[in-house]
């Protein structure tokens, strides 16, 4: 159990390294098998850690001290409810995307599988670490891998979008460093729990510097989370990325959201002295602007990939606004929404490629040429298509409707429960006391759902009904299964909404009152001379 805490980082690292050592594209099958096995193992590990964190009375399953140093002096990994929840979400999406990529996308370029594993390593590390600079390192690991994956398959559209993506994120990383070093200069520590204890005691003259550092750090995370006006790079990159990569990218914006949520509540939550609620107002306003921008953008999108990218912005904005409201209930509901929307969007990114497959310009021509001249290729085509699914269009249609229902937040799937929970918890206080911004948020939440519904319905009609001469896309079982599995998870989240919501509310409680977190990280007394395993 003790060393299981670091497995989400070490396992993908070794898997990726082995794949690199195997080298050569002729051994791609071994890499692919390793990728699937590792991704599934990560799902299992995440579930074990999640259960351990949930039964622990403090909500912290354990603190892994690297090198066994006492807490403020070295890097710690903290396995608490929020971290394990994000781990599970990532590994589920990753497993689905890895299976999906086997159909053909992993052959579109080199080193897909190792990069995939390194990106998982970066994401998992960012969720687990309890140290600000280590967070920077893991974010760089995941970004470096994501640069490679965003360009996977090449082509001028991808390279153009990738160029912007790399520049924006390099600049954001530099801001990250400036923020981290300012905070270090003022407080003298980088351990998040240690920071939480020191910030209330900062001298008044230094507070300006601290807040400047936190603000710059916040900008770096908000670029990753895609808050308006820092999000203009996002739709282009996500729309151009290969579908299995885009599905994982749906979680990347949530990494930014996760860090904002964790740090704002840990460092600037209630009872942290003069800096309490620092930045909440900005998150509230910025989040609402993001929701509005995403909704307008999704209405304006002509193709489905851009529509999905703008839906990512809506989801991100909703979460940021909910963080900005700073109420325990809303945070819990927003976490429920985070899981539901990320699963839905991941499934949608995968599904888009299946639906649009034979509508790409050039692909149609290619198919016709094959039919006319390609007799000798028949065996190869058979191999490519694999098991033919009857009523492909029917299955794709049902999957599309399910995605639309989850993303726009209609009953009966989990998106509706998530939005309903946010609405009820935000309205929980006496109706006269509600600030005007809350009303605007509720209005935006409902209108963005309507906008998503209109945009998705339009896209669905255009691709399923309005083209009588369309060819039925060749879809393999291995491609539709991950989509169906992700949607099934949304259905499970709907059926099991009670226990899951209880877990989310417990997570939100411990986030808003981080004493247990701080005590577990810093607390364990040092036994001189004795060997002290990870606690």
């Amino acid at each position, binding site marked *: 159990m003790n060393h299981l805490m670091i497995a989400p980082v070490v396992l993908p690292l070794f898997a990726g390294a082995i794949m690199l050592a195997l080298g050569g594209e002729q051994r791609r099958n071994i890499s692919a098998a390793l990728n699937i096995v590792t991704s599934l193992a990560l799902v299992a590990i995440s579930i074990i850690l999640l259960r351990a964190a949930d039964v622990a009375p403090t909500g912290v399953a354990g603190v892994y001290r690297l090198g066994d140093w006492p807490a403020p002096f070295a890097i710690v990994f903290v396995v608490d409810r929020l971290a394990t929840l994000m781990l599970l979400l990532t590994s589920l999406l990753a497993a689905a995307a890895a299976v999906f990529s086997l159909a053909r996308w992993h052959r579109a370029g080199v080193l897909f599988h190792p990069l995939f594993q390194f990106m998982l390593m970066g994401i998992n590390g960012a969720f687990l670490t309890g140290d600000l*600079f280590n967070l*920077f*390192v893991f974010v*760089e690991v995941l*970004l*470096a891998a994501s*640069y*490679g994956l965003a*360009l996977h398959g*090449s*082509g*001028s559209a991808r*390279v*153009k979008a*990738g*160029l*912007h993506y*790399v*520049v924006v994120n*390099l*600049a954001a*990383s*530099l801001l990250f*460093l*400036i923020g*981290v*070093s*300012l905070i*270090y*200069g003022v407080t003298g520590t*980088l351990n998040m729990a240690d920071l939480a204890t020191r910030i209330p005691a900062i001298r008044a003259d230094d507070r300006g510097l601290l807040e400047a550092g936190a603000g710059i750090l916040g900008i770096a995370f908000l670029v990753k989370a895609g808050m308006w006006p820092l999000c203009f790079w996002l739709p282009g990159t996500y729309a151009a990325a290969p579908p299995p990569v885009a599905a994982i990218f749906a979680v990347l914006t949530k990494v930014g959201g996760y860090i904002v949520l964790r740090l704002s509540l840990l460092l600037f939550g209630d009872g942290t002295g003069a800096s309490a609620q620092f930045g909440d107002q900005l998150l509230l306003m910025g989040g609402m602007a993001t929701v509005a921008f995403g909704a307008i953008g999704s209405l304006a999108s002509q193709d489905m990939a851009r529509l999905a990218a703008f839906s990512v912005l809506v989801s991100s904005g909703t979460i940021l606004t909910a963080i900005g409201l700073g109420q325990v209930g809303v945070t819990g509901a927003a976490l429920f929404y985070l899981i539901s929307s990320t699963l839905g969007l991941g499934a949608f990114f995968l599904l888009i490629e299946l639906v649009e497959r034979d509508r790409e310009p050039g692909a149609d021509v290619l198919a016709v040429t094959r039919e006319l001249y390609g007799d000798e290729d028949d065996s190869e085509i058979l191999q490519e298509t694999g098991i033919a699914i009857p009523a492909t269009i029917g299955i794709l249609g049902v999957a599309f409707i399910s995605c639309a229902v989850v993303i726009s937040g209609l009953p009966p799937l989990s998106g509706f429960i998530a939005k309903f929970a946010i609405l009820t918890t935000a309205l929980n206080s006496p109706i006269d006391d509600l600030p005007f911004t809350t009303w605007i948020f509720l209005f935006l939440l409902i209108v963005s759902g309507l906008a998503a519904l209109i945009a998705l319905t339009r896209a669905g009609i255009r691709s399923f009904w309005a083209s009588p001469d369309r060819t039925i896309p060749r879809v393999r079982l291995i491609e539709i299964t991950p989509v169906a599995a992700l949607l099934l998870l949304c259905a499970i989240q709907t059926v099991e909404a009670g226990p899951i919501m209880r877990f989310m509310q417990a997570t939100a409680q411990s986030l808003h009152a981080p004493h247990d977190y701080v005590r577990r990280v810093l607390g364990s007394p040092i036994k001189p001379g004795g060997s002290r395993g990870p606690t």
Partner: protein
Amino acid sequence: MEIVLAIGIGVLAGSGVWLVLRPRTFQVIIGLSLLSYAVNLFIVAMGRLKIDAAPILGSHVGDDMASLPDPLPQALVLTAIVISFATTALFLVVLLASRGLTGTDHVDGREP
């Protein structure tokens, strides 16, 4: 000493920002490099500037910790240098790919 370093960081960061906002990819990459130099110097400065202080613990130092510079920013800046160097090299590859595919060095992949 402080003012020299501050002006140095300021000039590097200012030129870096200006270059990053230019339309040619080569200007952008030089701008990013300058910015990362500025940030690296800034990290060192956040450990407080010290003159004539031993960089590492030695027998001649004794117990006076105040005479030593803060070692942590030095460790941080090493990591930051490596990472920014690696990511800049990666950007260089993307830059060349973009130049090859689009035939222009404009950041948008086409001449305005």
